């Protein structure tokens, strides 16, 4: 049940200090490293099915999650490793899930597209484009019903916008004033389909205006910009349950999935190279160094911690056994 909790203040997104800078950089690098290692494991056949990497988009999940409480909810589509880790999940259990092992977040039954983690209120991991938006509205409904002050952050891609459920979820959240923060990760492509080939209105944030909810576009490559925009949205949602639509302008550096490695049919190499100049990790690292929030030594330290932690996650996943075959028939129904 949506826990009622004494209204702890979420950290005000104001000033950046060494501590915050470290956390943001660490989380972004952790996700990046997790994804790189997952790609390796996929190539080795240790991960099967689809694998959608979040590389290039880390600032969105990290910026947003940095203003969330543990009892807030987050929900996403199938490119969700970053959202899940940013919400606080253990990379060991996440990697084990990608490996399809018994110690995985979803006991090996969900895989890469279906990470769930009740410990940190991460609600998945959904692979039908658009379908998790009404579900997010329902989580907001429950928060209001229970009189809680949590929020629900719902991440979705530009590809979900033409889907009817986007419209239904926007209208219901606006009509009923549900504390949902809609974060559209506009990485300009849905698989091979550029936004302008999918939407007659490419300024996605403008859809929110029609429903009368606060809406804005934000630079999804700037972790602080995301943090501030989401911070404002969270404040509105906690105090008077207003939903918000944020369009985070970002870019995926890799293909749609490991089966679309180049991702080069529908976009030029030049475009990809240009976008890589906006790498959210490089940008923030520079900024942190120039601003003096972090020293070069700090950064090296973070790099080391991150890579150790992910190596450990891979080792853990590798060591975790396959689920017992009886689990095929468990969790189909919950016994009363």
């Amino acid at each position, binding site marked *: 049940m949506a826990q009622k909790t004494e209204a702890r203040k979420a950290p005000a997104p104001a000033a950046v200090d060494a501590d915050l800078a470290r956390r943001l950089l660490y989380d972004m690098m952790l996700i990046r490293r997790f994804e790189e290692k997952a790609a390796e494991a996929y190539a080795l056949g240790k991960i099967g099915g689809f694998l959608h990497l979040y590389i290039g988009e880390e600032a969105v999940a990290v910026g947003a999650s940095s203003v969330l409480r543990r009892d807030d909810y987050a929900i996403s589509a199938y490119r969700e490793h970053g959202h899940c880790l940013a919400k606080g999940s253990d990379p060991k259990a996440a990697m084990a899930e990608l490996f399809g092992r018994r110690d995985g977040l979803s006991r090996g039954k969900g895989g890469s597209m279906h990470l769930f983690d009740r410990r940190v209120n991460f609600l*998945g991991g959904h692979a039908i484009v658009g*379908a998790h938006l009404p579900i997010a509205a329902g989580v907001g409904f429950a928060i209001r019903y229970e009189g809680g002050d949590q929020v629900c952050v719902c991440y979705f891609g530009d590809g979900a916008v033409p889907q009817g459920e986007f419209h239904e979820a926007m209208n219901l959240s606006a009509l009923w004033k549900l504390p949902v923060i809609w974060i559209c990760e506009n990485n300009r492509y849905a698989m091979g389909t550029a936004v302008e080939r999918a939407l007659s209105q490419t300024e996605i944030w403008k859809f929110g205006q029609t429903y009368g909810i606060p809406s804005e576009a934000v630079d999804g490559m700037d972790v602080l910009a995301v943090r501030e925009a989401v911070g404002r949205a969270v404040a509105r949602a906690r105090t008077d349950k207003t939903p918000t639509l944020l369009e985070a302008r970002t870019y995926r550096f890799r293909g749609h999935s490991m089966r679309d490695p180049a991702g080069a049919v529908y976009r030029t190499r030049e475009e990809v190279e240009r976008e890589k100049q906006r790498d959210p990790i490089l940008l923030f690292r520079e900024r942190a160094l120039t601003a003096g929030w972090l020293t070069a030594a700090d950064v090296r330290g973070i790099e080391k911690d991150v890579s150790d932690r992910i190596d450990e996650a891979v080792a853990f996943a590798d060591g975790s056994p396959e689920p017992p075959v009886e689990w095929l028939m468990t969790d189909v129904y919950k016994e009363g």
Partner: protein
Amino acid sequence: MAVMTYREALNLALREEMRRDPRVFVIGEEVGLYEGAYKVTQGLLKEFGPQRVVDTPIAESGFTGVGIGAAMVGLRPVVEMMTFNFALLALDQIVNSAAKMYYMSGGQYNVPIVIRGPGGPAHQLAAQHSQSMESYFYHVPGLKVVRPSTPMDAKGLLKSAIRDDNPVIFIESETLYAVKGEVPEDPDFLIPLGQAIVRREGTDVTVVAYMGMMYRAMEAAEELAREGISVELVDPRTLRPMDVDTIIASVRKTHRAVVVEAGAGFAGMGSEISAFIQEQAFDDLDAPVERVTGANAPMPYARNLERAKTPSKERIMEAIRRVCYAGSV
């Protein structure tokens, strides 16, 4: 015991469960101010207020998804489909989200939701508003599917459905809302999901039927009794999980079976029932299991064509006679 209509029995079940558990709420089109297109939710808005009796816009997949999300985090929604014809718009939410969430999450998030409303043939509502809808659900692992034929079942099974921790598809019938019957007033009266009931004991042939077809089969049975044919009538009540044992036990006794179904026959519920009967009671069968089903056509509007679309008492009687005389000569 009180005598009340099927509609009143459902209404009472909702009231009792809403009083018992503050997490239970009702959501759907016209359930509040209008008190339900078929008045099943009459008086609920007045008693429980707009927070727990929620009118929605026309957005089936949207408000069904809202129910699923709310259920994931601990509420117990009862989603009304004004009629089940519209549930197809929410089928992805029901099949890919509700039915699979508990499994995909490795047992972390169950979805205790009830999706209820009328389904099946109605009166001259034509192809889009008059059709048997259970076939889209009973094949799906993770769902439970209920079809309650009587006021008592409507109450006892709806209460169990609401208390169940899994998604339950609860399909009523426009043609039964006014049917009267005895209903226990005890708020703790429940009928467990997954239990069939023998509506009529008999020795010559087992007839399996539910909802409107159960009543029609009962008429056929009474009439055949006068011909000396003793029909045992079994009503599954829950289609998934199906109470196979009760049906098989009856067939082992009668050695003959007829399955009656209002919906189109090809690959319908009757197909599964016929299949498991011959699988599990093959050596007991003196005749093939016969199916009496609706025509394999959409529902026509014209009164006479509509009448011809669903099994008549006569067709049920003929099938029963056939299986009874087959093999016995």
